[in-house]
Each structure stands twice: as C-alpha cells, then as structure tokens.
C-alpha cells in the first residue's frame, strides 16, 4: 500500500515520517517515532491519555490521522520539560502525588499546559471542566486539580 510522506515539526524540531493512510497520529508517535510518553487508553477519544498539542491546540492524537499532521507543529509530553528541568506542572504532579500508575499523567500534563497557556489563573471549576476529557482510574481528580493550581501559582510568580 502506498505510504504517505509527512513533514511536520515535533517538539520544536523538523520531523519527517512515512505512514499508511489509516494510521493515527498516536500510532506513529509511539510505534514509528518511539515517542512513547503519549499513552493509548481507549483510541476512541474518551480518555485523554493520548493528548497532544497541534499548533498549540489540545487534541486527542488517537482521533487524528498521522497524515493530517502535514505542515503542522506537534507538541507531546516529551516536549514539555526543558532538558533535564521538569516543567512546573510535572514537578507539582510529583509533589502532590497526583499520579499512581501514571498512564493518564502525560495526557493530564499536556492538557493542563494548554489550559495554563490560555488562562494563567484558572478557577477550580474551569480546571475541572477543562480536564473533563482526561480520565484517571487510580488517583482521582482532587490531587490533580491541586497540582495544577499550585503549578499555575508558581508560573505566575
């Protein structure tokens, strides 16, 4: 079957890959590019574990064909830290024990980053609405909300 050639930018670097037409961006990130930080929970858009940013907009990478990334800029969990310095969101998730198994965590961090990029001082209610598409089966949501609030406060200071 003919493969599609895709030129894109991933985490600030030019990236090219070949994919088959029906492959999702999630599959290519994980299986072709070995960017396995992005997780697969459901592949039906329900869990948010596969969250990435495309041109700064939060999306489910399981609901995008990899071919649709042509000419666009993708940010994954691997692009959130600066070198070995964790992003405040990553550090606060650790500090608040906002994770257990961690499968949902990359999605929560990427989704929370998108929220704080748009609103540096979100209310608890807007955090909960914004993250309604990120499901966690271990930790619950209170610690996540507190970690996001704390990271937001640090980023504002």
């Amino acid at each position: 079957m003919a493969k599609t050639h895709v030129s894109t930018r991933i985490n600030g670097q030019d990236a090219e890959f070949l994919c088959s037409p029906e492959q999702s961006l999630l599959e290519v990130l994980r299986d072709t590019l070995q960017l396995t930080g992005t997780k697969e929970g459901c592949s039906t858009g329900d869990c948010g574990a596969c969250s990435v940013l495309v041109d700064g907009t939060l999306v489910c990478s399981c609901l995008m064909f990899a071919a649709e990334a042509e000419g666009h800029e993708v940010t994954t969990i691997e692009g959130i830290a600066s070198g070995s310095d964790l992003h405040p969101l990553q550090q606060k998730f650790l500090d608040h024990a906002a994770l257990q198994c961690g499968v949902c965590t990359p999605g929560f961090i990427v989704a929370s980053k998108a929220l704080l990029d748009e609103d540096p001082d979100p209310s608890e209610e807007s955090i909960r609405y914004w993250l309604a598409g990120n499901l966690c089966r271990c930790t619950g949501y209170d610690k996540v909300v507190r970690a996001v609030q704390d990271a937001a406060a640090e980023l504002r200071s």
Partner: protein
Amino acid sequence: MSLSAQDFAYMAPTTIDETITALGEAASTGARCQVLAGGTDLLVQLRSADPDPRTILDIKAVPETNRVGISDKGVFIGSAVSAATITHHEGLKAILPGLVESVYLIGSTQIQGRATLVGNLCNASPAGDTIPALIANQASCDIRGSNGARSLPVEEFVVGVQSNALEAGEFVVGVRMPHPGARTADAYLRFIPRTEMDIAVAGAGVSITLDEAGVCTAARVAIGAVAPTALVVPAAADALIGSRLEEASVAAAGRACTAASRPISDKRGTADYRRKVVAVLCERAIAAAAKRAAG
C-alpha cells in the same frame, strides 16, 4: 478500481473543484470515498463498526472550508472550522452566543480542538447539540458537487438518525445564516444527567426578536433529542410572536414543544420525562434569548 481491491488512501485537495473531482471519480467508479473534517466521529467509526478501506478526503486544506465570515448580509462558518475556533471567536460569541454555547457542549476540550460544527451537523445524531441551535438561527448548508451548488435549510438537510441529504459526489462547504441584527438573540440549552461530557436527553434552541417596546416580533424554536431528527416547532414560535413573553405565552411555547416531541425511552430518560423536560428547556432558553435581545 473495484471495491474489493480498494486500499486505504488519504488525499488533501486544496480547492473546491479538486474536492468535487475526487468525489465525482469515486462516485463513478463505485469506490468508497469519505470526507474528513475534524475526524472525531470518522476515526471512532473506522476503529469500530465501520473498518472497511476507503479514500479519506481531507477538506481542511481548502481555504473556503476554513473561513468564518461575518457581514451585514450574513454569517458563514466553513465546514473545517473547529469547535475550539468557534468558542474562541469574539465576533461569533457577540452575535450568536446560543450557537457558540451549543458548540461548547460538543465533547471534551480535546474533542473541541478537532471536531467541527459542520461535522456535528453532517453526523446527524438525533442528540447533536448544534443542530437545534443552527435551525433556530435559520441556518442553511452550502453544498457543492459535480452537479453544481445548492443550498438546503438545516432542518431539511438532516433526514434521519445519522443520515443527511448529501448525494454521492457532494460535500458541505459551510453553513450560512442571516446576521441576527439588533434586538435579535439566540440561546441553546440541553439537559444531561452529569455536569459535562454527556449526550443530550433533550435540548432547545431559540431565537427571539423584540421591538423597542419589548414585543416579540419574530421567533424560532427548535428542539433536539426528542425525535429522530431535530424539529422546528412553528407552534411554539407562534405562541411567542405578538406577545411580551409573559408567563402564559412562554408556557404555551413549552407545551407546543412537548406536543411536537416524539421521543424514545432509553437509559438517559423515559419518553415521558423527555416530553416534560423539553418544555422546561424551551421556556428557559426563551428567557435567556429574550434577555440578550433586550440588550
């Protein structure tokens, strides 16, 4: 190409004409070709009930499908415009707050990043939140195909459960509606058992025009999730026009919605419950739209 030999293919035409050509070729050879906008329904269906190979025709590279246009003549929203673009669009929020509310109710933040208003319409779910809001605003679909261009009111475009009026070789370039103008405003409300991320048990979209004296001079009421397709309810609008939206008129509009409903019972609610709740939603949406129209 014969159907059995068809492979998956991905195409991203950059003009309306190229899109029509690709659709026309597929239609004439019997190959399957599916238009892709946001993809939030398409990929889910592809991974579950409908995995068969097809050509995926991504329309997001066609400039007209990405356009939001607001002028005195009307409002145009292209078929590739995402929910996130609409919910962040100050011009649309200012003149069509009810339509924007209905778009804000589509799925999660992530889904809104990709899903499009026109995709929600074409998917034609009986519970699609944007459909009553579009009908309340007299929206129509701009359709293009090898036989030329045609326009169809949204209430005629949706013909059944997950079924629309597109013929083989046609696609929707966008939706168009009149500019609401001064003293006209819309609202959309739905009921769900949770606080977010759920499918409407019932919904009501309303557009109201008030004159300087507060008399309702025009109204449109549409209801969702209480019949196989969203319904226009002219009797509800008639109950409002000429009134000052006093309690009796608003209650009559609610009763007209109940009377027009043909709901099913399912895990989200019984038919009886839906008939009652659609009246309440209609009444509250009238109040919200009237408050906006009065400015």
